[in-house]
């Protein structure tokens, strides 16, 4: 707390008051904007309108996702079909970030990813792989495919494993499903190595979004359904993190031993209402 001419000024205000001094908002997508499932999935009630309201405000807006079942192009098209006003340049998924890393370090990947993500890697040299990349492969996480990835790693003198995210599970319309993090842990255990995470909650990943917005971390707020990877990851970088009670949220999240969200709201619509209210004052 600073004292200035007799007034107490909060150097760091909590939620929702902190919304007054925000310059940007970063939204998680699956579980916040929509729930995935059959076909395109289903927009979460109020989310389309909430995004519109944010765009009309003076806040900068970006979307940060660990979506790896489809290319960014296809994924954004799906969100547009659901009714969201959103464009590819505003969306930050892990695959493009991974491709940059491969280039930077002269690595050639063996891919264990969903078929829908493969086109994203069309321009990448995949011969004689010297690393493995795993994404949210869902039903492509067959024993055989996992074994192939394992054999590549165990055969390398310096095995490198990239995991596009480290989520434990996500929610689809027909229930909870295992996420990439589970298989990351499986391969880590099998090969006795540590994976490098590209995507949330990697600080590098969040930083690339902040850089694109031209903001410092304390000027931005992250809203997500994943307590550890969205909220915890954002807080770790110096952002505020708010959890929504949609998507993969579970009541026990509000009693988590290590991560405490700055705020917990019913859904994105409520979060945006609170944010804009604070800024109207």
């Amino acid at each position, binding site marked *: 707390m600073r004292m200035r001419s007799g007034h107490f000024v909060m150097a760091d205000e909590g939620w929702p008051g902190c919304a007054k001094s925000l310059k940007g908002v970063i939204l998680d997508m699956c579980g916040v904007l929509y729930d995935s499932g059959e076909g395109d999935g289903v927009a979460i009630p109020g989310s389309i309108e909430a995004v519109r309201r944010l765009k009309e405000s003076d806040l900068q807006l970006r979307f940060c996702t660990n979506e790896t079942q489809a290319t960014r192009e296809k994924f954004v098209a799906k969100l547009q079909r659901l009714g969201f006003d959103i464009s590819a340049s505003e969306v930050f998924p892990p695959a493009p970030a991974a491709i940059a890393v491969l280039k930077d370090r002269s690595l050639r990947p063996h891919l264990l990813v969903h078929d829908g993500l493969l086109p994203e890697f069309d321009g990448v040299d995949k011969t004689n792989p010297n690393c493995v990349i795993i994404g949210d492969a*869902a*039903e*492509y*996480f*067959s*024993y055989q495919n*996992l*074994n192939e990835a*394992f*054999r590549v790693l*165990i055969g390398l003198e310096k095995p490198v494993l990239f995991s596009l995210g480290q989520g*434990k*599970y996500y929610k689809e319309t027909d*229930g*909870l*499903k*295992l*996420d990439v*993090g*589970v*298989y990351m*842990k*499986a*391969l*880590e*255990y*099998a*090969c*006795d190595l540590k994976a490098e995470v590209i995507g949330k909650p990697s600080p590098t990943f969040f930083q690339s979004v902040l850089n694109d917005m031209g903001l410092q971390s304390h000027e931005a707020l992250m809203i997500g359904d994943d307590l550890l990877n969205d909220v915890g990851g954002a807080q770790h970088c110096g952002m505020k993190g708010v959890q929504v009670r949609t998507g993969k949220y579970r009541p026990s999240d509000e009693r988590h031993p290590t991560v405490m969200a700055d705020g917990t709201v019913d859904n994105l619509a409520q979060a945006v209402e609170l944010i804009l209210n604070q800024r109207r004052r």
Partner: protein
Amino acid sequence: MAGRRALKAVLIDLSGTLHVEDMAVPGAQEALNRLRQASVAVKFVTNTTKESKRNLLERLQHLNFDLQENEIFTSLSAARSLLEQKQHRPLLLVEDSALEDFTGIDTSEPNAVVIGLAPDHFNYQTLNKAFRMIVDGAPLIAIHKARYYRRKDGLALGPGPFVTGLEYATDCRATVVGKPEKTFFAQDARDDVGGAQNAGMLGILVRTGKYREGDENKISPPPHLTCDSFPDAVEHILQNLL
């Protein structure tokens, strides 16, 4: 060598030590017979969950190994005991051929998950099913947590990675039943010989099965001895440890 220990019992791992799938390790049958003639008790321990005790016995006798069913201790039988004790109704993710060791156990409306070496069950759908059960409160029982094993076509993932993955997904710890820590001959350095050494027993690592160059440097303390194969290990025992 400092101090001679008079051994009273020798526990022998099976898969990778006496045989690799359907082939005996050369000279192993004879070495076993020599060991039996010495004044030590001989027992067999195995984490093999791919087949029932009866299948295992048949396979080994077919390869001319001299052993009896009651000398074999498998982690499958240990898992069964636990299930009976706790009155769990298991979802058995074990190889079809291992199911025989669980006959008589009620598997309707399962309320526990049992994981053995079951590549056929380690697909996305079945693991999701297990995951949801554990999230709803079902205990996770791992017959063992081997990282990988050797097949004829190369190394293959064991149950360990999948158990670890489910523990991560659910924030739960599996109960690992199975292979006693006291093993003598084994070729997965970390899992077996390390365990034996830690239990105060002598561990001998053999360079067959899933052994990989440098394994002996991966456990602390290092193995009492690393040998090329089971017959060499027996030679050493007969010469030095009795």
